[in-house]
């Protein structure tokens, strides 16, 4: 079982390496969105500091969302998905592997970059730490929840938009708790509560989501 998940992760990472695009895409998008804002909004440090958690979290959300359509679409197009669905192992495990790989490729880099970008917005040390932590906890939830949407809209007319329509409402809590945690730190309230809620979302997202995702994939292949 573990070896299957490992095989899936290994394959997806190798593909991402080979394409390169995928690793950089979400990350690059994240950087762009975050850095364009000061350009459009103007450079007053006070204002920027207040904007920071919101901008960073919205950017993370958008970056993840944009990488979702490709989560299963490539495998669908070239017939690999059928092969995976016909494998004698539970499809949900394979999905779990793909979700983890997606997070490694699209989520983790955001976590690593967040402190660097946060400094641009003049965030203080503890706020930076909470920002990074909240992203570390929150991004797996984004990948997990997103997988459901990606599977449901696979091969469907108007997939991309539909995907955002389905996934965004489910992302809003993550955004609120995530940005809320940083805000709470900045205003001195303590981020504990927000972070534990985020953690619950992440656990649910990663370990519960593969089942509906697998079911949706089987429906998509019918």
């Amino acid at each position: 079982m573990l070896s299957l998940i490992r095989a899936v992760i290994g394959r997806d990472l190798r593909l991402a390496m080979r394409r390169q695009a995928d690793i950089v895409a979400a990350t690059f998008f994240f950087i762009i969105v975050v850095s364009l804002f000061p350009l459009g909004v103007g450079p007053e440090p006070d204002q920027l500091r207040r904007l920071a958690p919101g901008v960073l979290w919205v950017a993370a959300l958008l970056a993840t969302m944009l990488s979702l359509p490709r989560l299963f679409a490539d495998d669908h197009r070239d017939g690999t998905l059928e092969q995976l669905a016909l494998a004698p192992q539970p499809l949900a495990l394979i999905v779990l592997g793909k979700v983890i790989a997606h997070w490694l490729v699209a989520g983790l880099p955001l976590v690593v970059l967040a402190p660097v970008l946060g400094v641009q917005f003049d965030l203080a040390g503890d706020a930076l730490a909470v920002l990074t932590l909240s992203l570390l906890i929150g991004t797996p939830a984004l990948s997990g929840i997103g997988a459901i949407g990606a599977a449901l809209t696979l091969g469907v007319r108007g997939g991309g938009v539909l995907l955002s329509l389905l996934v965004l409402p489910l992302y809003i809590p993550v955004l609120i708790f995530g940005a809320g945690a940083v805000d709470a730190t900045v205003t001195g309230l303590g981020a504990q509560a927000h972070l534990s809620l985020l953690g619950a979302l992440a656990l649910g997202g990663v370990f519960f989501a593969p089942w509906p995702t697998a079911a949706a994939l089987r429906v998509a292949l019918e």
Partner: protein
Amino acid sequence: MLEASNLECVRGERCLFAGVSFRLEGGEMLALQGRNGSGKTSLLRMLCGLTPAASGEIRWCGRPIAQLGDEFRSELCFLGHQNAIKEELTPLENILSTARLAQEPLDEDAALAALELVGLLGREDLACRYLSQGQKRRAALARLVHEKRALWVLDEPYVALDRAATELVAGLVGAHLQRGGLVVLTTHQAVAVPAGNVRELTLGDDVALQQRL
């Protein structure tokens, strides 16, 4: 071993076929025939359990495949119109990662041997996107060389292959039949399989739903 009774396939407003039944034992091959769009691909996908049949049942060793689930899938090897190879990976990586996902250990030597057999040696390190149409198909078919699962379901395996490769694949199919395997296959080309018992099934004209009352 594989038994289908009274299968019916409905697509949109059309009933592609109905009342299709057959029984296939070890060492036998079912050659599906029929016009373009007569429902061959649809039937194969039903046999794999990818698409549910509108009515009828498919049994493997006497039990419905929907019940068997993973047990059935571990005996099944499907190759569709799509090649299921990744254009970014090399043929070698493709065959190795396919085996790893199927949880079947395959070492690099065996993989190279398979690639040599299908004539891709010398291209094993070239990303598949550079391969010609026929070479891509060969890369996909290389899986069959070491494939030991009992039931092969192949959808037009000979497409885009040249004569030599076609014969090679027919040979692989024949060898599988001789080992006691089962094969279900569609093709529009007349290709003789060297061994095994070949049965034919021709899908006829489809009928618009409203005419079936």
